[in-house]
């Protein structure tokens, strides 16, 4: 683990009693003394603080907002040009085969585009953006900034107590705040299905900000373990598990994130890598899977149409116990003829077929502030 990079909050994690594990090249807290289940429930009932500084933060700047947005649209199937000032969207880089190279958040801050990408993909993402967009667009990795998420029903009060403007933000707004004298960029978004914020802060001030946030009512530190069960219950994809270079946005059930203007027939249709295949009607798709028993169906479990069928119709890509659901939850890919909610299927766990039902996502309704 000595080779792993450390975020600006590393010492704080250790001080708080975190169990540190290697994750995407970083030493990250997988859990604190509260434990995964306790941390999960605390986030849903109060507020959790997550260190997500391992993620890549990148700004794209150019001659004008239009120039930057137009350039970025050559890499993603999202409507970038139509993004309003101070607004954020979910998106993904596609490849020539229509697969997903990474998923990301992008936000308009003035004439700049702020892009947040996954830790494991960030070097490739930055290289891709540089190769495709420079020199007209300048790609700057903000490796001098940390990223801290505060999630849960208590998140608004925690931030608004430090800067009242936090309460005025809506889901997917991004704005400058001053939290206890520290200038930050905050977006109202997250990866838990709860209301909350993601806060970009200069690295030297990250620990002071984290301590201030943890001193607010109900805010507790949360590790990667609970982050994973929270996002799974919220039906959100983990890149590398639920979507990857071999899954298209259509297969990933992510067409909601492809705005009309970029779809076939739209004013700016196509023009991104793999446009011919990325959005095509799929033969398989990502669905929620609700095992009927108590046994979790984890990544890789094969899914069958019957108890005796020899060929699987799909497989699990993420599966665990959902503390809020109170039972096992999973997601995975099944052929489209078995993808309707309510379809009864079978998952093979330790050589035994167990009943599992296709279920609508999310498992736990989102509580965003629209």
């Amino acid at each position, binding site marked *: 683990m000595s080779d792993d990079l450390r975020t600006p909050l590393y010492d704080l994690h250790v001080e708080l009693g975190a169990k540190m594990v290697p994750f995407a090249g970083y030493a990250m807290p997988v*859990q604190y003394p509260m*434990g*995964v*289940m*306790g941390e*999960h429930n605390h986030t849903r009932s109060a507020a959790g603080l997550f260190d997500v500084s391992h993620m890549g933060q990148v700004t794209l700047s150019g001659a004008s907002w239009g120039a930057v947005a137009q350039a970025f649209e050559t890499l993603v199937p999202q409507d970038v040009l139509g993004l309003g000032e101070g607004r954020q969207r979910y998106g993904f880089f596609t490849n020539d085969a229509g697969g997903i190279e990474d998923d990301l958040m992008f936000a308009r801050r003035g004439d700049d585009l702020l892009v947040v990408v996954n830790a494991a993909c960030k070097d490739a993402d930055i290289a891709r953006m540089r190769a495709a967009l420079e020199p007209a667009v300048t790609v700057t990795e903000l490796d001098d900034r940390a990223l801290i998420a505060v999630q849960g029903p208590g998140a608004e009060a925690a931030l608004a107590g430090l800067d009242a403007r936090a309460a005025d933000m809506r889901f997917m707004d991004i704005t400058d705040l001053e939290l206890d004298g520290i200038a930050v960029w905050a977006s109202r978004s997250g990866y838990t299905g709860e209301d909350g914020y993601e806060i970009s802060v200069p690295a030297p001030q990250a620990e002071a900000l984290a301590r201030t946030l943890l001193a607010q009512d109900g805010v507790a530190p949360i590790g990667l*373990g609970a982050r994973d*069960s929270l996002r799974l219950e919220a039906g959100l994809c983990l890149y590398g598990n639920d979507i990857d270079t071999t899954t298209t946005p259509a297969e990933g059930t992510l067409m909601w994130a492809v705005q009309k203007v970029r779809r076939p027939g739209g004013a700016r249709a196509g023009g991104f890598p793999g446009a011919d295949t990325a959005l095509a009607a799929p033969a398989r798709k990502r669905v929620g899977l609700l095992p009927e028993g*108590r*046994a*979790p169906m*984890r990544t890789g479990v094969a899914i069958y149409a019957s108890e005796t069928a020899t060929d699987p119709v799909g497989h699990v890509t993420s599966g*665990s*116990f959902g*503390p809020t659901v109170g039972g*096992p939850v999973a997601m995975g890919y099944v052929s489209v003829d078995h993808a309707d909610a309510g379809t009864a299927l079978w998952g093979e766990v*330790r050589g035994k077929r167990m009943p599992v039902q296709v279920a609508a996502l999310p498992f736990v309704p989102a509580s965003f502030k629209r």
Partner: protein
Amino acid sequence: MKFTEEHEWLRDEDGEMVVGITIHAAEQLGDVVFVELPEVGTVVSKDDEVVVIESVKAASDILAPVDGEIIEVNETLVDNPGMVNDDPQGEAWFFKMKISDPSQMDEFMSEAAYQKFIA
């Protein structure tokens, strides 16, 4: 009580051997959410996988510590797997065994030796 390097404990109860996992093992596993017990009457050999235990993190197997026969299982764990975290060395035993070869017990550790082993 005797302890194994697989982080199990065995308690002799009138010639029947009660088997569970240690406090240390329960802490390492994290919150237990699923327990699958063997059938009563199953004849097992040392190191056979007899119990499946899943925590929020991962699945693990509990191995038979010695040769013998499963004569009772703790059904309450199936509906209340969290007991494994609450009282691993007490109420949350997994199964009772009739052991075939008592000499297999000789290699197991005392509590003090086990504490040293995990230190």
